[in-house]
Each structure stands twice: as C-alpha cells, then as structure tokens.
C-alpha cells in the first residue's frame, strides 16, 4: 500500500520541467524595447499580429544554453509563432550584435537589465519560456532549452486548441 503510494508519486510526470505556479496574469512592467528604445508594457501581449498565443523567451547573450536553443526559436518564428524576448541582465549592445550575427526570432525584446521583471515572473534561470494568451494570462511555462520534443509535448497542444 505504502509502496504503491510512493510509486504513484514517483511516476508523476507532470512536473518534468514545468514549474507549478497558479495561472496568473503577466506581471505589469514598463521597460524599454531593445531595438527601438521605446517604452513597452504588458499590453504588448494583447495586440500581437497573429494567433492567440505569444511565446515569451527569457535569454541573455552570456547564456550558452540560450545559444543552443536559438536555431529552434528561429524555426518557430519562421512557422509564424509570435515570439517576444526578455533580455535578462544583459548588455544591450552585446545582445544586439549577437542577434545581428545569429538572426533575430523576436518580434519585440523587453530589456530587463535589473532583473526586476524576471523576479516578478519567477524566472529561475535562462533560458525559460512562457506561453501568454491574448488576455495577458500565463498559460504555461517551460524551464530550460526548448526543442522540438518539448514543444510538441507541452506547447503545441495549446495551439491546437485554438485552431
């Protein structure tokens, strides 16, 4: 009896690399956009050009795992997924030149140089990705490098629901 309870608990795959935090609205912020230098707020999720969901990707130029994730993000952008970047505690110039070199999958990039928005979001480490709907609610989040396998398993189902 006790063993089976433990086995059940051990087999709980739900928490793989998703952190269980209650569904909540995206924290409000007012930060600059990396390329344009304009102030942007949480309202950016409400008027995305296409689709119901926006993928928010937390990254930095000093983060090597983000570099290995980068080609997959470019592929997603090509497929028409809205991607917004959250540049975490980075040097804006280095971030910009890295994107010039490796390609830019982001429609907009929030500059979080003090890491304040990251704390409000509950960011544990880079890279991290959040799926945000048009109401500005966080639908789900994934810690670590995104790849096709994780995308198909954890994020793609949201897009199927809206089709």
């Amino acid at each position, binding site marked *: 009896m006790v063993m089976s309870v433990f086995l059940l608990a051990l087999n709980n795959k739900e928490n793989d690399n998703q952190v*269980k*935090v209650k569904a909540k609205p995206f924290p409000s912020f007012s930060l600059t956009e990396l390329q344009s230098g304009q102030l942007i707020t949480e309202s950016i999720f409400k008027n995305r050009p296409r689709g119901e969901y926006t993928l928010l990707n937390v990254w*930095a130029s000093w983060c090597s795992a983000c570099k290995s994730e980068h080609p997959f993000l470019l592929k997603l952008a090509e497929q028409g997924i809205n991607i917004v970047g959250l540049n975490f505690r980075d040097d804006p110039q280095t971030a910009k030149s890295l994107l010039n070199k490796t390609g830019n999958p982001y429609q907009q990039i929030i500059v979080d140089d003090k*890491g304040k928005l*990251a*704390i*409000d*979001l*509950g960011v544990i*480490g880079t890279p991290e990705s959040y799926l945000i709907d048009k109401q500005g609610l966080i639908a789900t989040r994934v810690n670590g490098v995104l790849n096709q396998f994780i995308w198909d398993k954890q994020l793609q189902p949201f897009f199927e629901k809206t089709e």
Partner: protein
Amino acid sequence: MCLLFIFTLLFSSFAQAQNTPLNSTFSPANRDQVKQVETFNFESNEQQTGTIKFSRELRCPQCLNQNLMESNSLIAKDLRIVVYKMQDEAQTDKQIIEFMTQRFGDFVLYEPKFEPKTYLL
C-alpha cells in the same frame, strides 16, 4: 607509455577547461548587484542578524539545495536584495514568504506547508 597517456589526458582536459569561457555556464558577476547586496544599509545590527537568519530559511530557486545566503547565483543575489528591502520596509515574514511562493512555488520553503497534499507526510 601509460604515463604519457595520462599526461595527454590531463593536458587535454586542462586545455578544454581553458577553452570554456567562465561566463558560459555561470552568469557574469554584476558589480552593481554585488555592491548592493554586500553593502546593504541595515537600520540596526539586530535587523541585519534577523534578516540574514530569515534569508537562510529560504531556498534559492535556481540551486539544488543552497539557501539564499549561501548561493552566489544571480537570482539568489537579486532575491537577497528583495528580502532585505522588504524587511527594511517592515513587511512581515509571512508577506515575504507569500511574495516568494507566489513567484517560485513552495520549493523555496524548507518546511513544507501543512495542506491536503502533505497530510500524508
């Protein structure tokens, strides 16, 4: 021959370590951030001791089992400043714990909450 092999192995691992930039796995030490944490102006010695003791009771969300005071990770340092500031603003421990668990979940607590999913424990 064997010695030569070991030497080559040692040398190659050394060379590899040299090729790996330090900041590729760890985030860069941010001078402003370090300064802010290390020189935080507490109102009194008692408050400093109290806050540091409290920070030790919160687990760093990024690390496997270090607390906020032990960890040198970027996130732990940021959170240390947040906790210091909240204590400075006379917010209660309960308010700070709520702030932390809302963002990072119950993982940050060393003592699990007593709720339906933990009754068994």
